[in-house]
């Protein structure tokens, strides 16, 4: 018994300098299909830190883990509106700028967008950003409506037009804040409005096209769009690009197109943050700084078809990506993009209720 005790004491003495140095481990929780194939292995090779890489496919799942606490993760990647509330809940630590020399590479414009959710950019760094727009199957739309206004939200929000596509399948994200802000924007209202009357108008708008909507889901539309099981989706830019690529791979005659509608669309950012109870905060800083290397993040953008928030990387990215106005929109389109904030809990409740009513068609 004494021996065991002595051993334990000895180990704890050894552990103290090790703690100061941190064991060479890093636990990352990121979206699925959201990193280049060699990013992690390169980081491990460069730093000698062993990375445990887990993935999720919804902010809700991430949030539930974060709110429960003691997740064990060192770096997580929430979307801006979720990040905002999570910062309010006190989940994330403030970043140590001294350990992030590559901050200088970041695009000030996109970091300002993020500042709506994270004032002063103290808690998070933009990883990728994109828009919430429309994806459609060109052939299916043309067959049903040759003169379809495919650059406009009319496709989804005008019942007279949407009904043409009901038989081939319209889908929406199961994300109330994103869909409702798009609806508010389409109605010419403030997409960030928390006014109950505005919410009612947006609800009525979505309900007016509700009969033509096949389902509300935040990931299933990727494969369905690629397979031609559906033809029109309100979805995230990157997801629709994935669907595009899959359709090309499958050579099934489906041509998926992504547009940022002319009325304007929501811009969102996925951001790297460090939980307060992260076991390896130093390694986490190292990783975030590593991602901010222009070459590293450029490779990721090439792979995942998302714009990143790193200005210095833009010249290094494949021109096919940077040249695509759907990924890197021109300035006039950019002017119409808007970011969303998290809502007050009271409004959140109203929003969820309205959303459930919409989904169930009641």
């Amino acid at each position, binding site marked *: 018994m004494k021996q065991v005790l002595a051993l334990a004491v000895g180990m704890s003495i050894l552990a103290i300098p090790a703690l100061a140095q941190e064991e060479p481990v890093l636990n990352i929780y990121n979206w699925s299909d959201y990193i280049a194939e060699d990013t992690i292995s390169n980081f491990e090779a460069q730093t000698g830190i062993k990375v445990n890489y887990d993935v999720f496919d*919804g902010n*809700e*799942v991430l*949030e*539930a883990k*974060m*709110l*429960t*606490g003691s997740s064990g993760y060192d770096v997580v990647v929430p979307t801006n509106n979720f990040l905002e*509330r999570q910062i*309010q*809940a*006190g*989940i994330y630590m403030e970043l140590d700028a001294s350990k992030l020399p590559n901050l200088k590479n970041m695009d000030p414009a996109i970091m300002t967008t993020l500042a709506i959710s994270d004032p002063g950019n103290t808690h998070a760094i933009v990883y990728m950003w994109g828009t919430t727009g429309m994806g459609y199957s060109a052939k299916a739309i043309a067959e049903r409506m040759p003169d379809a206004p495919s650059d406009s939200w009319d496709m989804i929000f005008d019942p007279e037009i949407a009904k043409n596509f009901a*038989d081939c*399948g319209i889908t929406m994200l*199961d*994300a*109330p804040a994103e869909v409702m802000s798009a609806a508010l924007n389409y109605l010419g209202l403030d997409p960030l409005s928390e006014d109950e009357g505005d919410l009612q108008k947006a609800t009525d708008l979505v309900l007016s096209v509700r009969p033509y*909507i*096949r*389902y*509300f889901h935040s990931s299933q539309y990727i494969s*369905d769009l690629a*397979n*031609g*099981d559906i033809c029109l989706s309100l979805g995230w830019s990157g997801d629709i690009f994935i669907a595009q690529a899959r359709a090309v791979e499958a050579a099934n005659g489906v041509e998926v197109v992504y547009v940022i509608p002319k009325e304007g669309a929501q811009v969102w950012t996925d951001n790297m943050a460090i939980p307060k109870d992260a076991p390896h905060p130093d390694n986490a800083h190292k990783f975030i700084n590593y991602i901010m290397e222009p070459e590293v993040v450029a490779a990721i953008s090439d792979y995942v078809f998302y714009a990143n928030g790193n200005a210095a990387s833009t010249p290094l990215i494949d021109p096919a990506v940077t040249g695509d106005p759907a990924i890197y929109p021109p300035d006039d389109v950019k002017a119409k993009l808007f970011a969303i904030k998290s809502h007050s*809990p009271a409004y*959140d*409740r109203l929003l*969820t*209720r309205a*959303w*459930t*009513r919409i*989904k*169930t*068609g*009641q």
Partner: protein
Amino acid sequence: MTLMDSLAADSRPWAFLRRLLAKAGLSGRGLVIAAPMLWLLVFFLVPFLVVTKIALSELVIASPPYAPMIEWTKGGELIVKLNFGNFQFLFSEPLYLNAYLGSIKFAAISTLIALLIAYPMAYLIARSGERTRNVLLMLVILPFWTSFLLRVYAWIGFLKGNGVVNNVLMSVGIIHDPIVMLQTDFAVYLGIVYTYLPFMILPLYANLVKLEDDLLEASADLGARPFMTFLTITLPLSLPGIIAGSMLVFIPAVGEFVIPALLGGPDTLMIGRILWDEFFSNRDWPVASSVAIIMVVALVFPIMIMRSAQDRMEEKAK
């Protein structure tokens, strides 16, 4: 007990343990009863109390996202806050009532369909020869060897617009445009019935296999045609099996989330999805917990009623 016996007893390793437990007032029988009680306590009662606690808390933006129920103030006061607002809210919103009713409707209809399909199957298995019976039972249980999720995904492959069923029907020329089967109530019923069918078949089989041929022959002998024999003998005697199987299907079906989420349409209103939305989308843990508590309470009553009906039935059969 002679000295030798007690020495022999002492040499057994468990004798010491038994004496120790006896000193603590625990007999072997006590332990046998205590084990399942402990199980229920740890895996049912404690989680239930935790959920109840959350249901009675207030929503806050924090981690965890609800206010503590018990607080020590600096002045040394103990403050216990019980917030019944969440329950009030559930009763004030027709949505929740509709969701409960929707769940019960889905579960009840699925249970009925499962019963109608399972009964002849269980009957056939119970009436077949021993070897055939074992093979058939194996076939019933076989799907459990693959993941439940995988099997539900397989149904997606069958039912979707360009899935197996539509492709076959179209290639044969029965239909020209694909039928929308996925994301409909039909798909949910199909999924629930398919998934829970074994839970209906097995208790029915266990009951029907005990049904003695003599009773059926006696009924025929006394002038009852086969259908009358079924109505007056087989059916009433298999009621305990029907009740057991129905409970095993109905109860999990009420709280089912995965099947309506994957196969159902957006208007498939079931309490499991509402719960998911409250917890994940709305991050309103207190309301989500209240939904769960009411579901448990709402389910406990039918279970109790069915159990007592079953007990009466067994009493009768004696």
